[in-house]
């Protein structure tokens, strides 16, 4: 069934959508009450964040927009050293969106939420004019396990770990759009277990960040700016699969600026780097983790190239589109 504007009116159709799709799949005692707000218990200080998800196509190898919407927000919570607990989900549906597609997305959200250990406790649905797109906003609340983790907290001598291969989400999406066949699946995944592994291994994590829009190049520049340091990385340490390399060479893309949805960097004291690496690699989501560089005095991001040269790494300008030149 195609969802039309009447489903956003707040009346009978809206509540049928809520019952038949969202309550059916998200199903938990807090949400089921359908109060104006969820009433919840939390322990200690909280982490709180939001993201909206607007990916096209809605389904891709390795996931769909619903999986992204859950992972994106629980990952932002995890990066602050928090255990994700509760999510809200706001759906903006363009008229023409398919209710079966929406139901599949909701089902995936539930599965991903279960894996990530969170409950979807409040939601909202609006219908707007348009051509059938589905947009999802999630917000999340988590309980802080370790205080002081911050993008501004990186120190000279720290090592930078990257949890795995670059570019998979972006490449999976672009493959669908451009009709290139491969086995590249989005890396989309909830990363709290990686964080928990680092904390349980006793690592004094200084900073974590998931490597999403803008790619590694952009995130490292944020680190350099916020912590007033220079980030130095080695091209030869950057994990990129052959398949992604091939994909990038076809479309003229650079893995440094491609979006990931299940990758993070962790900045840890130099002396704990190997131990942190081992902790990451024990987790399936960190199997290809690498130590990719260090924090130095200075500013900006520099890369030691495979040929031994040195160059600046800037942030992303504009979009990552296929190029002829």
């Amino acid at each position, binding site marked *: 069934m195609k969802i039309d504007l009447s489903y956003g009116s707040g009346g009978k159709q809206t509540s049928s959508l809520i019952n038949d799709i969202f309550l059916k799949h998200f199903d938990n005692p807090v949400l089921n009450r359908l109060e104006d707000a969820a009433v919840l218990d939390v322990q200690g200080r909280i982490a709180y964040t939001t993201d909206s998800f607007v990916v096209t196509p809605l389904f891709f190898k390795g996931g769909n927009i619903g999986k992204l919407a859950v992972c994106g927000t629980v990952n932002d919570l995890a990066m602050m050293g928090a255990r994700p607990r509760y999510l809200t989900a706001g759906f903006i549906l363009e008229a023409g969106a398919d209710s079966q597609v929406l139901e599949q997305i909701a089902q995936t959200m539930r599965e991903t939420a279960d894996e990530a250990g969170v409950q979807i406790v409040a939601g909202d649905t609006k219908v707007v004019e348009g051509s059938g797109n589905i947009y999802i906003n999630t917000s999340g609340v988590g309980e802080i396990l370790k205080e002081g983790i911050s993008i501004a907290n990186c120190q000279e001598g720290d090592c930078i770990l990257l949890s795995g291969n670059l570019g998979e989400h972006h490449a999976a999406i672009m493959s669908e759009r451009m009709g*290139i066949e491969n086995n590249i699946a989005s890396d989309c995944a909830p990363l709290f277990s990686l964080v928990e592994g680092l904390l349980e291994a006793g690592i004094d994590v200084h900073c974590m960040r998931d490597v999403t829009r803008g790619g590694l190049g952009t995130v490292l520049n944020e680190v350099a700016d916020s912590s007033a340091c220079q980030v130095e990385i080695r091209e030869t340490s950057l994990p990129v699969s052959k*398949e992604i390399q*091939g994909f990038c*060479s*076809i479309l*003229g893309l650079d893995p440094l600026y491609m979006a990931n949805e299940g990758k993070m960097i962790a900045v840890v004291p130099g002396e704990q780097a190997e131990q942190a690496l081992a902790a990451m690699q024990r987790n399936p989501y960190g199997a290809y983790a690498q130590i990719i560089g260090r924090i130095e005095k200075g500013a900006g991001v520099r890369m030691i190239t495979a040929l031994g040269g040195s160059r600046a790494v800037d942030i992303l300008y504009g979009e990552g589109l296929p190029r002829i030149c």
Partner: protein
Amino acid sequence: MCVAVPGKVIEINGPKAKVDVMNNTCDVDIRLVQPKLGDYVLIHAGCAIDVLSKDAAEEILWMFNELEEEMNGHPGADR
């Protein structure tokens, strides 16, 4: 000037071929070249523009050999 990438021809269907670039398969127009199955072609904007005669490693070896010759005062025939 023009992004291009080598790929291996794995299937030919008239004017089109399936070409593999490190496990990425694209449909490529081959009307500008005559590749055989297994050939490597150079792909630019969805089109094969050349059949490659050497692989990258071979080419680098050849290059360094040429330079050795020239360094020693024996420039090759190519001009």
